[in-house]
Each structure stands twice: as structure tokens, then as C-alpha cells.
């Protein structure tokens, strides 16, 4: 069960990491991009937020071979979780970009910085900080969603729990143990995210603050 727990954490970490990159790109494209970038971003976000993660996982694992892309179980799980999480993270980040506002962009441009430099050095550092409190829901949600990997037989915590339940004829004990392990992981993750939020906090920079 320990191995399964570690794999569940791996699935979460890779999903969040891949999702952060995708989500950041999608949010930037949607808020600051041109017409095409915006439409592609909206399409991606709506597609992956509007369909069940299980369908996405099956499409990647069973569907992609149909167009000649065959991925192993673990890669499929990483990809599906990353794509799914990216869509949610894009929405959290988009909200934060909008909260930072056009005025900060104007201030950056007035100093002589280009649009991109202003995004990089002024908007992004503020948006990421503003995003943390709401964004912090996503790693927790994704951690629990990783259990769908069971359905393509990735040996995660859920898969291991099922195996043990079958071996020991003790489903209550096995699944309770799994539940406790998920609970502990969520708790620790929560504490970690709160710590990140505290250490990156800047006086006067918060969404409900007197910023404007």
C-alpha cells in the first residue's frame, strides 16, 4: 500500500505540474492573447472542464491508439490528469490576472517596459500570489481525482486497496485504510499550501485588500 500511496502522490505532482504550465499558458492566452489564442484557450478550458475526467482518461488510453498514438498506462494517467488540471488552473489564474487589473499594465508600460516584460515582472508575481488561496483547492481536488487511474489499472493507492481487499477478504479494513491515507495526504498538502501562502504574502497585496 505504501507503493500505491507514493504513486498517488506522483500522479498528483505530475498532474499539478503539467497543469500549471498548461493552465498558465491558457490563462495568459485568454487574458492577453490575440483572437486566435483566446479562442483556442477557451476551447481547451471548456472541453476539459465540461467533461468527466474518466471520459478524458479513457479517450487518452483507449482512444488515442485509434489515431496511432499508443501510450502506456502511467503516461496516459499523467497526461489526462495534467490536461484536466490545466483547464481548472487556467480558470483560477485567469481570475487572478483580472484581479491584478489593467492599471498595473499601464504603470509598467509608462515606465517603458514592453507588454511582455510587464506581464513577466509586474502582473505575474502579483497574480500568482493572489491566486494561491483559491488555486489551493485544485491540488487537493486532483489528489482525490487520481483514484480514477484505478480504472486503467495504474497501481495507485486505490488499485492496491482493491487488491488487498480481494486477498484478505476484508474490504472494510482495506478501503478504510485507503481512506485514512488519502485523508492524511490531503491534510499534509493543505498545511503545505497554507505555508506557501504565508511565506509569499506581501503586506497590502490581497484580493479583498485596499489595493485599489
Amino acid at each position, binding site marked *: 500500500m505504501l507503493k500505491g500511496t507514493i504513486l498517488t502522490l506522483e500522479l498528483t505532482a505530475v498532474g499539478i505540474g503539467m497543469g500549471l504550465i498548461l493552465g498558465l499558458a491558457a490563462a495568459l492566452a485568454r487574458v492577453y492573447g490575440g483572437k486566435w489564442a483566446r479562442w483556442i484557450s477557451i476551447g481547451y478550458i471548456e472541453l476539459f472542464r465540461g467533461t468527466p475526467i474518466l471520459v478524458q482518461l479513457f479517450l487518452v488510453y483507449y482512444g488515442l491508439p485509434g489515431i496511432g498514438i499508443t501510450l502506456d498506462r502511467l503516461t496516459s494517467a499523467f497526461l489526462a490528469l495534467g490536461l484536466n488540471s490545466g483547464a481548472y488552473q487556467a480558470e483560477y489564474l485567469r481570475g487572478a490576472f483580472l484581479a491584478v487589473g489593467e*492599471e*498595473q499594465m*499601464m*504603470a*509598467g*508600460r*509608462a*515606465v*517603458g*517596459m*514592453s507588454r511582455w*516584460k510587464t506581464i513577466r*515582472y*509586474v502582473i505575474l*508575481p*502579483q497574480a500568482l*500570489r493572489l491566486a494561491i488561496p483559491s488555486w489551493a483547492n485544485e491540488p487537493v481536488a486532483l489528489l482525490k481525482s487520481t483514484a480514477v487511474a484505478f480504472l486503467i489499472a495504474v497501481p495507485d493507492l486505490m488499485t492496491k486497496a482493491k487488491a488487498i481487499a480481494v486477498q484478505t477478504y476484508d474490504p472494510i479494513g482495506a478501503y478504510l485504510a485507503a481512506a485514512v491515507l488519502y485523508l492524511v495526504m490531503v491534510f499534509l498538502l493543505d498545511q503545505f499550501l497554507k505555508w506557501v501562502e504565508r511565506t509569499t504574502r*506581501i*503586506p*497590502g*497585496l490581497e484580493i479583498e*485588500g*485596499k*489595493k*485599489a
Partner: protein
Amino acid sequence: MAAPILELKNVTKIYGSNVIFKNISFSVKEGDAIVIIGPSGTGKSTLLRCINLLTPLTSGEVYLDGHEVNVKGKNEDEVRQHIGMVFQNFLLFNHLTALDNVVLGLTKVKGMKQEQAIEKGRHELKRVGLADRAEHYPGQLSGGQQQRVAIARALAMDPRVMLFDEPTSALDPELIGEVLSVMESLARENMTMLVVTHEMGFAREVADRIIFMEKGSIVEEGSPDQLFRHAKSERTREFLGKIGDLYGKKEGAKKKK
């Protein structure tokens, strides 16, 4: 006679069918402090933003040091480096300390080395009397202090001209004085300035020339003495009379302190 630093020729801004200002022409010579006054909504702030290319002009020409700036293909970021801008609501970078607010443009735009930029940043903060607030974040500073940091941020770029867009309008009355006195000392150092303000005391004492704008046009311009005592236009006299009543008390109170 030296060429003007800033020259506007027939600049016009129209939003849809809404004329913001029309056929505005004037020039600013090196060391001039020019104050634009006029009722709210007459396009004064938009005019400043157009000069700084933050808003596109509908027509007309703007020259900085004899070079036309609002032409296609011109590097806007390069132009803005030479024009300092101070906004009504400060617009400091909220995630950076006072010092880093000043330093960011130096390192990212001018390509200055970090140590050098910090040294210059500290110097500029000292200039606005905030050397001891360098490590404070905007959220920890009063409005007046934030605005002075914003002035230091603009000054650090060594601009040819400084634009002030109602720099004291968002401030509590007791904080206005500290910002105005920084601006006065800049004018004494012969910084070229174009100031939109309702502070008539400042206009009277500091301006080399006052431009009175209303409904998108220049009604009258001249020295403070001309406008305050011998205004040609009835409208100018009326406006100055009204605003004098409104702000006179406040300024009187300030001087007693």
C-alpha cells in the same frame, strides 16, 4: 532659441462620436513647468495619456525633442522611457518594496546592473524624502508617500519631461502638501513638467505658464499673473473664481500650519 522638448500640433482624440479634445497645440520648452487646469471631463487626463502613447491619438502630431512619436513603427517603449508619468492613483507595483519599484525600470528597461540600480534607486528615494521607507511595501505607505515613490520611480528613468495627472486628487488633504513640495522642488531644479491639477496655489506659484482647457479646447493660456488677474476670457475668470472659492479655504488652512 532651443527647440521645444515637447510639441503638440493639432492633436485630436475622438471616441466614437464623442470628441474628447480637438486641435490642441502647444509646446513645452526645456525647464518649463506648465500647468493645465480646467473642469473635470475636459480631456486633460486623456491628453497626457495620448502624449505618453498609452492611448492612441485620432489625429495630430506629438514631437519629443523634435522627433515625431506617434507614427507607425515607432518603438513606443523607447518613447515612454523618456517621458515620466505620475498617475492620480499612484499605480505602484504592489508586490515590490519602494526601492524595488524604482529599481525595476532601471534593470529591466535601462539594463542597469543591480547594484548600480539600487544605488540610483536610493538616491531617487532620498530626493523625494523617503530614504527611510525603501524597504516598505506600497500597502505600508500613506497615499502621499506612495505618490512620492511613484515620482521617484519616474525620475529614476531620467526622463526629458515629467507628466503629472492630477497627482494629488486621490490624497487626503493633509497629505497633499508633501507631494506638492516635492513637485515644487523639481520645478526649482528646472525639471520640464506638464501638470494637470486643481491645486491653484501650486499653479500660481510654480507654473511658468497655465493652460485653461474646457470642453476639449484650450480657452486661454498665459502666465499665472495673466490668468489670475487679467484673464481675457469671461469663462476663465468664472472658473478661477469658482475654484478659488472651493479650494481657497483649504489652502488657507494649510498655510496656517
